[in-house]
């Protein structure tokens, strides 16, 4: 379904601020697989999602999705295949237009937009039903500006919008990190519902060990722009939060070790 081969990206190359968030990343995701992505800050997990979404062109490597080589596709063209929910609840919706017009935009994700009405009556009824399913009491005021809603409400709507047309791939970039615990739980519940209902192929970045352990059927851990652990099947099902914390400790020890080891090598060989 999603095949990432030898993907590399360097930002600010040749300057003091040079960062290499993706180094020769290899990842194959099967159709219908729900992959959790964890890692330390700056490990490249969000960059990986952005590379797949098309926010920037990679320096090297290839991304293919659902049989298309999308490496050179611009972001808006990839949207035909990809649904996205961002970390910032304000990123996924247009604040100045109404809830129903935002939803109407989502019903046409990736299609040509012409001079037909954005809001045909038949759609409005469907909007009421599916917004009603979110149980947030918004179905009665679909004509209000979406900017007046809370972050949790907007994130739930963004999720609904990203999956209104079934995407080949759903990208969730820490989509509950900026929400209060109750809203976060609600959005996670809705996320699980839609992923299992539509059998969506999903990449979800998270910082929550609880989410990482309880969600998904596969987990990858990134560090320094590489995938350093890949856990699936029974091993993923039996994974506990302590196992993950132990792996983070391991990464930390490796980092502490590295400068010492380099110093030792220098003394020995130079």
């Amino acid at each position, binding site marked *: 379904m999603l095949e990432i081969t030898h993907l590399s990206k360097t930002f600010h190359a040749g300057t003091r601020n040079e960062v290499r968030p993706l180094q020769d990343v290899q990842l194959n995701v099967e159709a219908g697989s729900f992959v959790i992505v964890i890692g330390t800050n700056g490990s490249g997990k969000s960059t990986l999602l952005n590379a797949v979404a098309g926010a920037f062109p990679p320096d090297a490597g290839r991304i293919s999705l659902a049989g298309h080589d999308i490496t050179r596709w611009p972001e808006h063209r990839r*949207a035909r295949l990809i649904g996205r929910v961002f970390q910032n609840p*304000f990123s996924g919706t247009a*604040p100045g*237009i109404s809830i129903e017009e*935002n939803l109407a*935009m989502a019903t046409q*994700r990736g299609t040509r*937009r012409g001079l037909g*009405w*954005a809001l045909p009556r038949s759609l409005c009824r469907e909007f009421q039903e599916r917004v009603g399913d979110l149980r947030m009491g918004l179905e009665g005021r679909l004509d209000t500006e979406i900017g007046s809603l809370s972050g949790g409400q907007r994130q739930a709507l963004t999720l609904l919008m990203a999956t209104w047309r079934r995407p080949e791939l759903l990208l969730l970039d820490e989509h509950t990190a900026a929400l209060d615990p109750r809203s976060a739980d609600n959005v996670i519940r809705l996320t699980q519902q839609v992923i299992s209902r539509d059998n969506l192929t999903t990449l979800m970045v998270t910082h929550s060990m609880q989410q990482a352990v309880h969600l998904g059927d596969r987990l990858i851990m990134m560090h320094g722009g590489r995938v350093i652990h890949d856990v699936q099947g029974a091993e993923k099902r039996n994974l506990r939060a302590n196992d993950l914390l132990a792996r983070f400790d391991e990464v930390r020890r490796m980092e502490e070790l590295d400068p010492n080891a380099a110093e030792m090598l220098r003394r020995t060989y130079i």
Partner: protein
Amino acid sequence: MNLLIGALTIGLVLALLAIGVYISFRIADFADITVEGSLTLGAAVAATLLVAGVPPIWATLAGAVAGSAAGAVTGILHTRFNIHGLLSGILVMTALYSVNLRVMGRSNIPLLSVRNATDYADGLASRLTPSGRPLNVMGWDVATRDAAILLSALGLVAIIAVMLYLFFRTSLGTAMRCTGDNPQMARALGVDTGLMIIITLALSNFLSGLAGALLAQYQGFADVQMGLGMLVWGLASVTIGETLVRTRRLGLAITGAVMGSLLFRLLVAIALRLGLDPNDLKLITAAFVLGALILPGLAAKIRTPKREAPHA
């Protein structure tokens, strides 16, 4: 009374410019100074064609289309070559100054003696008062021809405003509004935001070119300087309109821009009548827009400390 009629007519013609500025500034969130050049371009193209004997309707339309082409160029510079939005506009505006001189062949073309769009109003005028006598409006005598021109301008602006309102409710129009509101969201939903900006600027400058073409025909000449300060003029109309309607909802905002243009032209006419030096007009307009832009923020700053106090 004639002063009032004249002010209202020019206010209506420039309302098209105001709607154009509303589209680029508010809907696309793009301060587009191209309008200063495209307004003159619209006037220049229309005037040149009129002098060559082209029927007024086609000459006017050609002026508007030329304006939209200028807007599209600004959009292409900005989106395809990553040039800063304001700079793209400045480049096109500067280039248009020479283009306009080339189109006209000189700096000024008089239009009083050629058949132009105001002549279309004559038909309406003869229907208003078949006798040809001046019209009596609330005790004032009004030249029938002036009244007919005013009514025609009102009809035209109303039709264009309604068409734009309907257009912005279509799928394409909604995608354009989303692009200005949240480009990240628009791209994530498959909207080619670059293309949307180009279309929006083309539409905005179409209106600016149309306003220029009509203004030249109404005032009886096209002049290479006539676009000067028009962006700020449009911004003034938009901000007055927003104060009047107090909402950013689409339909009311467009109506507001029209009302703002009318009111602003009226205020200017009164100020000039009271002895304001015309040379100071642009300074006062700029100061006015500055005030309209910073006052809401200042008012909020003065009010918030009191309200926030209990939280601190």
